[in-house]
């Protein structure tokens, strides 16, 4: 795109403001890092021709259906599958008795039955599965399985889980972290207390779960699905099927949205079992209801806080109790709790901190990894406390935050020194000093978008505007000693480069980034990224920004090795080191421009391959008092939210979100902007509408009408005010993954703005309308 076209596009698009400054005279580089390279699949996705798992088809396939428990807590007295098995068209019915291998699985902790055998621990737990020649037959057959339950009282209040009868042989306490840092007797002149509740956000991927399992002639099975952690899924499938891992292959299809772990093994394991049992390909596409029942949600959290500060507003001590509702199984609760406890004070300097965190088992829907896990819940609470403190001291909320802001060299309550860039003050002043959006008073009244929407009931006289600030932080990569390694291969032949890496493109932009890395290193324009399966070496789960960091790092190393292989003979011939040669536009040129040859000539028909690994420096688990260097890296952002609240109806419209983010280095400006916008919007959902409600353990509205995601009208103007490019020296390219921290911070910012507009405490997310109602005189 020429600069003129870029300017024109910016002028017409009012929703996206990218601060990327392109001087009018400097031509942007055409290749490599720092360029807004569009994704290779953008056209297919826009035109609807991009294949997802739900589109797959195999000759003679059968359809699967999973029978799920209608009760959150029940003893299974008997399962009678005979009526289902006798139905015409039914080819197999399986229960826990038909599992040849391990009956339990778990991506992190093996504590979850593939099929419930004696006890049901949550609403929607799989009990049996059916394969039939038509999807309706499969569903009818699943419904015809007679299960006799003894319904038990569900444990749904996490505070009661401590004293309740164990719901699982592993006990109800999944993890307890008592973090102790500093002097327990320290006190401040001012004390504020608060109780905060965070609801259950669902990753709500636009494409529900789907998969196709195909038996192999050697007795193995291939599973085609949108897994975001294919090797882990392969291993747990192999254990369940009683096969060696080599005989199970997970082939990753297009991923239709993933902000948490995909896919639900509660589908994939029955699919594989049914394919092995029938010898036929078996397909399953989940309904939206099954999707909500099956996959993991964000941990509902209860937080109790006490902040001590001196008269100038400097924090003295933070005491907190954090209770995560893990649901029936452990999943990622341990990691979520570590993040919640470690970041319980936020990006502030706190000399003394005493944080107790628990993750407990209940009969509620299962919780697991959703991006910003742990950090998002505590952000809403500690920022609520900062607002309370500011109100009590009569200090401007932004000023109070600046007085306490963390910077490089400060120490976290876990005892870890912040060694990466931490430009927290600069982020906050950037959003604070950005001009506020104009009030609509000069525009014609018909053009106002009031809370409630264009055809809503909003009335200008009842609308109050509020401005709120929030600062957030997340860790990047797995924490507490997780081995965050990734392996990538780069092949160059005939002027075309191919990247082979099992990092799944979930929409985070890995495959685009991989192409840019190879373009940058090898100067080759045409780069393909191979599709992912488990025959490739593992690259780990697509979480915590790890593919931007370790997988892109592995691609870069492999590309550098190819570069050396390519340039070594030339360097020898020219009598100079490979560092003095440059590759650009298909030409290899020496530093002085005197010697030059084409890449094709240098390749001489050869094929070059290299495989490399990237492994960041190791971390350590938090010890028994919550201390340890648990995190590889940290990322920060500041958000200023502007909201309009109809104080009679309690309806809220977010007018603008101004964000400044610490990104290390911008590798792809347009992709970065979309990641930030998506994160902010997901955060707005958590702040206002997204709460998967359950009553006595039963999910109440498992559909997208009851679970309201933000629409285009709910998404505000998102202004990316500043991207601070202070390179993180330990990260490849110096770049920090950018998707999670806006999700963490934006709910707290919206809550702060609603607090400012209404004068109400706002201690619960999502914000219910009755909590945002205020008297017009206040």
């Amino acid at each position: 795109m020429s600069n003129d076209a870029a300017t024109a596009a910016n002028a017409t698009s009012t929703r996206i403001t990218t601060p990327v400054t392109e001087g009018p005279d400097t031509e942007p580089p055409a290749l490599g890092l720092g360029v807004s390279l569009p994704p290779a699949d953008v056209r297919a996705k826009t035109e609807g021709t991009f294949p997802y798992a739900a589109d797959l088809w195999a000759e003679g396939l059968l359809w699967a259906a999973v029978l799920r428990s209608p009760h959150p807590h029940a003893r299974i007295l008997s399962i009678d599958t005979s009526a289902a098995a006798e139905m015409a068209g039914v080819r197999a019915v399986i229960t826990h008795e038909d599992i040849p291998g391990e009956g339990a699985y778990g991506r992190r902790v093996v504590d979850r039955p593939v099929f419930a055998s004696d006890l049901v621990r949550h609403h929607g737990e799989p009990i049996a599965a059916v394969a039939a020649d038509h999807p309706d037959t499969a569903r009818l057959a699943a419904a015809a399985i007679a299960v006799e339950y003894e319904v038990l009282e569900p444990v749904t209040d996490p505070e009661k889980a401590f004293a309740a009868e164990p719901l699982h042989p592993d006990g109800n306490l999944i993890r307890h972290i008592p973090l102790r840092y500093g002097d327990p007797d320290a006190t401040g002149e001012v004390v504020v207390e608060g109780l905060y509740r965070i609801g259950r956000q669902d990753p709500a991927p636009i494409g529900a779960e789907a998969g196709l399992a195909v038996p192999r002639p050697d007795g193995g099975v291939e599973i085609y699905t949108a897994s975001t952690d294919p090797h882990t899924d392969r291993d747990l499938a192999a254990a369940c099927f009683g096969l060696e891992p080599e005989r199970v292959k997970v082939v990753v299809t297009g991923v239709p949205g993933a902000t948490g772990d995909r896919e639900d093994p509660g589908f994939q394991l029955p699919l594989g079992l049914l394919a092995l049992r029938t010898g036929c390909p078996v397909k399953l596409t989940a309904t939206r209801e099954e999707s909500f029942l099956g996959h993991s949600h964000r941990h509902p959290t209860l937080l109790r806080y006490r902040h001590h500060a001196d008269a100038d507003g400097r924090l003295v001590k933070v005491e907190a109790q954090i209770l995560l509702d893990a649901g029936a199984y452990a999943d990622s609760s341990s990691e979520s709790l570590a993040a919640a406890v470690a970041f319980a004070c936020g990006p502030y300097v706190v000399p003394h901190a005493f944080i107790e965190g628990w993750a407990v088992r209940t009969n509620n829907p299962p919780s697991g990894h959703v991006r910003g896990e742990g950090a998002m819940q505590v952000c809403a609470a500690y920022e609520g406390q900062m607002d309370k403190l500011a109100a009590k001291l009569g200090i401007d909320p932004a000023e109070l935050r600046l007085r306490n802001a963390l910077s490089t060299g400060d120490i976290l309550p876990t005892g870890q020194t912040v060694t990466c860039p931490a430009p927290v003050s600069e982020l906050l002043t950037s959003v604070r000093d950005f001009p506020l959006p104009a009030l609509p008073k000069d525009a014609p009244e018909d053009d106002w978008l009031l809370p409630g929407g264009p055809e809503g009931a909003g009335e200008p006289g009842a609308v109050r505007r509020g401005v709120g600030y929030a600062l957030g932080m997340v860790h990047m990569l797995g924490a507490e000693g997780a081995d965050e390694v990734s392996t990538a291969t780069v092949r160059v032949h005939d002027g075309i480069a191919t990247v082979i890496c099992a990092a799944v493109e979930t929409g985070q932009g890995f495959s685009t980034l991989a192409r840019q890395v190879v373009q940058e290193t090898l100067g080759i324009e045409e780069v393909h990224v191979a599709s992912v399966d488990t025959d490739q070496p593992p690259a780990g789960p697509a979480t915590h920004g790890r593919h931007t960091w370790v997988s892109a790092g592995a691609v870069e190393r492999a590309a550098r090795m190819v570069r050396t292989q390519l340039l070594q003979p030339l360097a020898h011939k020219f009598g100079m080191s490979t560092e003095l040669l440059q590759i650009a536009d298909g030409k290899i040129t020496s530093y002085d421009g005197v010697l030059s040859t084409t890449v094709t000539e240098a390749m001489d028909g050869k094929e070059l391959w290299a495989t490399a690994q990237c492994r960041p420096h190791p971390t350590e688990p938090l010890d028994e008092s919550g201390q340890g260097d648990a995190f590889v890296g940290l990322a920060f952002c500041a958000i200023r939210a502007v909201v309009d609240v109809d104080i009679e109806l309690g309806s809220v419209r977010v007018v603008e979100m101004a964000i400044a983010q610490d990104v290390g280095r911008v590798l792809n400006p347009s992709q970065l902007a979309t990641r930030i916008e998506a994160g902010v919007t997901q955060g707005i959902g958590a702040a206002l509408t997204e709460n998967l409600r359950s009553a006595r353990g039963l999910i109440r509205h498992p559909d997208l009408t009851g679970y309201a995601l933000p629409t285009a009208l709910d998404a505000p103007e998102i202004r990316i005010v500043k991207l601070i490019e202070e390179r993180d020296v330990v990260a490849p390219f110096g770049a920090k993954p950018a998707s999670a921290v806006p999700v963490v911070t934006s709910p707290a910012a919206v809550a702060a703005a609603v607090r400012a507009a209404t004068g109400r405490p706002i201690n619960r997310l999502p914000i219910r309308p009755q909590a945002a109602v205020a008297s017009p005189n206040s």
Partner: protein
Amino acid sequence: MTTHAPQATQSVTLPASLDEAVAALGAMPAAVPVAGGTDLMSAVNKGLLRPSGLVGLGRISELRGWHYQDGHALLGAGLTHARMGRPDFAALIPALAASARAAGPPQIRNAGTLGGNIATAAPTGDALPVLAALEAELVVAGPGGARREIPVSHLLAGRAMLEPAELIGFVRVPLLHAPQVFLKATGRTGPGRATASVAIVLDPARRGVRCAVGAIAPMPLRPLEAERWIASLIDWDGERGLAPDALTAFGEYVAAACIPDQEPPADGGEAPPLPPAVLHLRRTVAALARRALGRALS
């Protein structure tokens, strides 16, 4: 969702007139009529319904427009929300146009129809409180060219039912030539189901105010006493304005009528307070009714 598996054969009829449609339904009693399909097809996709035959109403052009009769408009049941939202329709029946514009995202408004909204009779159907306030009548077509009329409120309350092989043909709505307002509270800024809605219709010829509250009960509620009281305060021959206090009192009257206090216990003592969520709903209804009447009288 793509399902490549063979589907059970379905008979689909596409009649060109209302009577042909009635005849087709009579000939195949198990068939289901379908217009916009916005509710029916979601039930089919969920596996809740597997109709053995469909009678498509989309080609019946007489149902897709309206005509006039004795000071009334006869609205075809096949009018889409999108069509009703246009300015020419809004000039005739402003509240119905407003409810049509609020009835969901454009995809739904382009397909969903007035008749479908009535037949589905969901508590959150946006047209329903407006039809209740307008005291609309349904013209139902039966076998052999038979026509009968039933008030829409009787159908919604279950006092009258559609017989087999009957179809909603038209909706008879009075043309009142006076302000009408429909207001709806939802959970988000984007399209959403109503948590509460209020329709206010002024009838200057009969010196009446008619109000209906939607989404808070299985059918729209009419606060008749509040209507009569507020109509008695309005100076119909003059400015028609009301003091803010009167508007507020009307809102609270409507809300209390639709969401009454709990009954006191049989053994005496205080009635238990309403739960906070119900109290908020009552406040919402009060604010909507007050705003709607204020806008109708301004």
